């Protein structure tokens, strides 16, 4: 008897999120990564930074290179399985420069992506061709002493993968591979970007995706930043070489905001992505 496979594709990645080295969905939330007793943010709205416990960080000391670890958590309604939490973990190299008294500029280069789910029936693999196709993208940091000592925010940033939109923030995503706005971002001959799935079901998925996110965080020190990510993801599957992977699963933002967070630690100016990936366990023990 041929057993019908059961699939579980939880496929929402965000280059604005970064990764830990764990292989399972972390029960830990942001607070585990924050220093001191004041690191217990329960929601983005309650984010109040260090309060009176942190020494003020001089903005002049912030520029430099950082390794960035982002976790973006979503709840996915997976057919035949039910609701499942899924994390996209991103490893990135960030270059920070000073724009003016109130702003910093970030240039973020994604080094690696990993998706981890509560279920292990399938694994989502981000091919190197896709990772290499990701260009470094900018992000503005607004220094917000009005929110508390060392606090900052980052306004809405939008990234679109696999399609070129005139208005990236508002244009609907293309739904057909034949749409002229769709392009082969990773150069593999398939429309949009290609993600691969392996496990009890396998195949390629060709898709376009839009990530929209804001950040709110604080400078724990001149060498370490942390905060929360508030993001939305839209995704359209353009095709697959496996009919079982023909449409995305319904998903929504994890209701616990502390499950989506980021941490940055300073690295030497000469460090690159491969160094960050190789030293990940040391940077984020």
């Amino acid at each position, binding site marked *: 008897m041929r057993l019908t496979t059961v699939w579980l594709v939880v496929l929402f990645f965000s280059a604005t999120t970064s990764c830990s080295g764990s292989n399972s969905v972390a029960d830990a939330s942001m607070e585990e990564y924050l220093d001191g007793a004041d690191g217990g943010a329960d929601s983005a709205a309650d984010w109040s930074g260090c309060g009176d416990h942190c020494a003020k960080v001089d903005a002049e000391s912030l520029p430099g290179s950082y390794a960035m670890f982002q976790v973006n958590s979503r709840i996915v309604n997976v*057919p*035949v399985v039910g609701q499942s939490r899924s994390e996209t973990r991103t490893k990135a190299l960030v270059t920070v420069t000073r724009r003016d008294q109130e702003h910093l500029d970030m240039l973020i280069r994604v080094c690696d992506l990993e998706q981890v789910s509560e279920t292990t029936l399938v694994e989502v*693999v981000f091919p190197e061709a896709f990772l290499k196709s990701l260009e470094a993208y900018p992000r503005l940091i607004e220094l917000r002493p009005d929110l508390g000592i060392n606090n900052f925010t980052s306004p809405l940033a939008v990234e679109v993968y696999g399609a070129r939109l005139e208005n990236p923030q508002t244009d609907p995503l293309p739904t057909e591979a034949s749409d002229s706005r769709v392009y082969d971002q990773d150069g593999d001959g398939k429309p949009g970007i290609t993600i691969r799935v392996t496990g009890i079901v396998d195949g390629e998925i060709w898709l376009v995706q839009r990530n929209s996110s804001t950040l709110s965080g604080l400078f724990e020190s001149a060498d370490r930043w942390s905060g929360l990510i508030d993001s939305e993801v839209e995704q359209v599957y353009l095709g697959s070489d496996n009919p079982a992977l023909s449409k995305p699963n319904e998903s929504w933002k994890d209701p616990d905001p502390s499950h989506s967070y980021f941490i940055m630690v300073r690295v030497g100016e000469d460090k690159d992505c491969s160094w960050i990936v190789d030293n990940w366990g040391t940077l984020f023990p």
Partner: protein
Amino acid sequence: MYNIPSGKKRVDILTLVALFLVFIGYKHARGSALLETLGDSTELSGMLARVESTGISATYFNPALLSFAPAQFKAGFFTIGQNLSIKLMDRPSGVDISDAIYRARQLNPDGTTSRLEIRPLPTAELRAKRGSYDASGWLSFFEFGTVVGFGAKRPFSLGFFALIPTADFQGQQPFFVDEREQYFSNSLHFELLEDRFSGAVFVLALAWRPLGWLSLGAGALMANSTRAVSGIFMPDASNQQDARTISRVSVNTRLVPHFGVVAEDQSWRVAATLHFPLQNKVVGQGELQFWNYDYPEGQTALYQNFSFVHGFLPWRVSLGGRYLLGPPQGLGGWLSADILWSQWSAYQNRMNERPLDHWSDTFAPTLGGGLRVGMHEISLQAGYVPSPVPAQTGRTNYVDNDRLQLGLGYQWRFDLGSSRLSLGAHLSAIHLLYRSVKKSPDAEHPVIDEFPDSVDIATNQFIPESAGLQTNNPGYPGFSSSGWLFSLGVALRYCR
């Protein structure tokens, strides 16, 4: 050999038919591969039963012989031992499938990649050790039946024959004959032996003797067709050990006919038979339901169809003869010969598939004879059964051998009051002649490269372990087979 006793009492034909119908009711009766291999295992005729049978086995082998068999009840027991050997050649290095296959995409000639078309397991993760299955062992059977004559000159005779295993009433152990068997026994199997021997046989036949020298017979053997539907509901696909399962099974009985004709005078007998093809089919469907699942349009479940065939026997035609030496009583003897044609080219294996490399039809000759001294008789048979299976140099691993068969029978007749009894025994030895085969890349259907040249799903880098041929085909790179079958049977026959 017996002469036809006279003055027999009539047995009600309805009783016999009712007995047959009772066994139809069991709906388990099936194949006769064992009978085709051993012949009559409890009486003199042995492998020449199509020509010589004087007992209930004529019901199956040649129903026309019922006209010449004494009216009787018979019960017997026999056992068969299978001492089978399959030796697998050592696998060369580099043919194992590594676990890199889990992260592989097949590299196409144009440089693109695609999903793997077949899904072998890493060799190290196979559930069963290669060649770990051993089919050797013993099986035992009871047999019983009756022959009843009707009419003043007995123009009609009716026979009933039943063969019932002492263990599994009906055993089926299907297997794949190629690389797909890696998921199961990961071994090779003798295609025409093993589970084909387990199962019951029920046969009913009628003989008509229009002339003193001519008898015509027709019989029917019960086969069955099974339909099984398994309904499965899986509440959580991520926990596949938790499932709600029901199974619906229906078994239908079919009657497979066979015919015989016998012509004889005081010294000569000519016998011919025709047996229709036989197969016991199991067809079915798994109906799989998941929680929160969009089924294909028009479906309320996912359907998984399967089909098995057990105990396939092809068309069989035999022609044989017997010559009596000496007087019909006292000191005498006989010589017999038979040749059996079997249309194995139409073979369907246990998975209801035709062999990729076509099988051949076979002619199997058997010679024999016997000696009678008063109330004692002995017989001897020798036969050769060629294998229909071509050299398995390619993907498939049908294991089958030419067979040399020897049989030795004995019968002692004695009177008990007004009744005549006979005690019979038969011993047979079948040698599976040694056969060896090595796989060849030049075969018409060569061994499949189960891990074709592939790249890593993440890096797109070539996977070195995929270069060249990798296979979990348990028959690769070759194998040899041989063995022995032994049977010993005894039976008591009561004639009125």
